[in-house]
């Protein structure tokens, strides 16, 4: 392998060597992510030959085409004329937006609090240590456990209702509702967003913040005019990841959500496993990919913009 003149020599052997070394994960991603998605899209359009033959022989309610250059939107029509799906799609998007905004807002509050805590202020630095520790706790807990914990906490006989009952009033039952799903998704996504945004806010130079403070700027002005513009990229990464994670969530809504409406992650698995209608399940997957692509494009754009700003491209 050409590993001799790393980085310095422009020899073509090094380039090929680097490409060879870098290729295994690329091949895995191409074979087990890119390829299945293309095959699945073909299947959703009615192509049941080739690699789709096995699944097509055991599936019910399929729409098929006879030639490779044809396509059938029958499965899409099935899915989109089902009022349950359109309702679930709406619910999924709303829950995704709410959870994503809540996670980002909470992460920002934590990050700004940490950044603006002066040294030596015992009360504030104690609080800062506590909340930054708290915010990463969910990363330590498997999602299945978190989902089950959320359900028992907000259930009819859970902590919230028990506490309210002891205080003498009727508390809300959020278990098996979309409220619990949204709360749970905020919970599971908080650590990543907090780490991203905190790390971004921390890297804003002290001098800039102090200069703004000397000029008489209040906290909100400093956040808006100094910190925020320098933290766009980490914020966008946090937003995108939370949104994509929420769109594809299965475990949290499966455990804590109602039977109907449910999020699309749950619908996809039940169409695939329980109803034996994989083609419709794949159609939903394609729809979810399309929604996620919008968020993903946003992420790539933000990252490229920052790379351009700092002269890395």
């Amino acid at each position, binding site marked *: 392998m050409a590993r*001799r003149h*790393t*980085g310095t020599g422009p020899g073509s052997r*090094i*380039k090929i*060597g*680097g*490409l060879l*070394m*870098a290729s*295994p994960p*690329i091949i895995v*991603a191409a074979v087990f*992510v890119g390829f*299945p998605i293309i*095959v*699945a899209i073909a299947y959703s359009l009615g192509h049941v030959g*080739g*690699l789709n033959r096995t*699944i097509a022989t055991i599936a019910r309610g399929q729409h098929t085409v006879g030639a490779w250059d044809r396509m059938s939107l029958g499965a899409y029509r099935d899915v989109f004329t089902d009022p349950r799906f359109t309702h679930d799609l709406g619910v999924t998007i709303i829950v995704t937006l709410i959870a994503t905004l809540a996670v980002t807002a909470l992460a920002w509050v934590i990050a700004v609090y940490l950044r603006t805590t002066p040294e030596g202020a015992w*009360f504030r630095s104690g*609080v800062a240590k506590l909340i930054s520790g*708290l915010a990463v*706790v*969910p990363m330590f*807990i*498997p999602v299945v*456990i978190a989902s089950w*914990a959320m359900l*028992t*906490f907000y259930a009819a006989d859970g*902590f919230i209702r*028990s*506490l309210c009952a002891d205080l003498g009033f009727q508390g809300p039952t959020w278990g098996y509702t979309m409220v619990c799903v949204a709360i749970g998704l905020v*919970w599971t996504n*908080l650590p990543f967003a907090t*780490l*991203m945004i905190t*790390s971004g806010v921390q890297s804003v130079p002290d001098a800039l913040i102090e200069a703004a403070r000397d000029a008489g700027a209040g906290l909100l002005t400093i956040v808006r005019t100094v910190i925020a513009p320098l933290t766009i990229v*980490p914020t966008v990464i946090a937003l995108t990841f939370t949104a*994509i994670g929420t769109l594809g969530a*299965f*475990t949290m809504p*499966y*455990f804590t959500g109602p039977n109907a409406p449910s999020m*699309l*992650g749950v619908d*996809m*698995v039940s169409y695939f*496993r329980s109803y034996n209608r*994989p083609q419709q*399940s794949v159609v939903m*997957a394609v729809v*979810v*990919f399309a929604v*996620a692509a919008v968020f993903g494009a946003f992420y*790539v754009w933000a*990252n490229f913009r*920052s*790379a351009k700003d700092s002269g890395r491209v």
Partner: protein
Amino acid sequence: MPVSTMVTKIARQVLTVIFVVALLTFIVGPLLWLAIRAFSTSWTYPRLLPDGWTLQWFGRVFDDPQLFSSIRLSIEFAITTLIVSSVICLPAAYAFSRFDFPGRRVFLIGLFATNAFPKTGLYVALAALFYAFNLMSTFGGVVVVHLLGTIVFMTWIPAAAFASVPRSFEEAARDAGGGRLRVFFTITLPLAMPGILVALIMSFLASFDEAQGTYLVGAPEFYTMPTEMYSLVLNYPRQVAAVFSILLSIPSVVLLMLVRKHVMGGQLAEGFQIR
């Protein structure tokens, strides 16, 4: 200090305390509420504590062969995934950070795109194809699903770690007569180790905690600890599910504690920015 400033200061501290208590309840409350149940004989609504205390449910879990085998299976999958992922991804991470080859950026972003597909949708697409490859309900099929969850961690974070090792260190060692491999193992690798460790542990846990893909591809042959939870909560007393939850959380808590400093110190965040 004027009275009005004092009042604002106290009001601000009271608000802060309320925020902290709310956050504490939101984050830790559900976990505590679940953990306490593992030690309870029974629990009557609306009491805030169980009716009595017991350890019997732990025995119940350890005596159940099915539950116990799921623990072993989870560890087997996690270790296999980690080995496969290391072999595939670590050399690539080094190449991404040290070599300049055509398409480097495109490939790096392309790898990242594997995370841009909502998980359940991706697994559904994958499962459809697994039927053709005879990978449905096989050990290999589950490993592939787990592997996909580790690729971004195992290339991006170590790549950032390798890139942060100054080239001048390596060049100095090489000038002093160190061979290429020796320089790598004595200079580059140790300096990049914190980042690699974070990646390894994140990957181990990604596999250990993976539930939805394992359920879709592995059931009914392979039930790992997380997928066992799906049926456990329906078929067993709630205390057994609580015990199982505690057991399933132990590896995550222990391993993440080990790298907590590096994760909080920005290794993870660093690894997710395109370079």
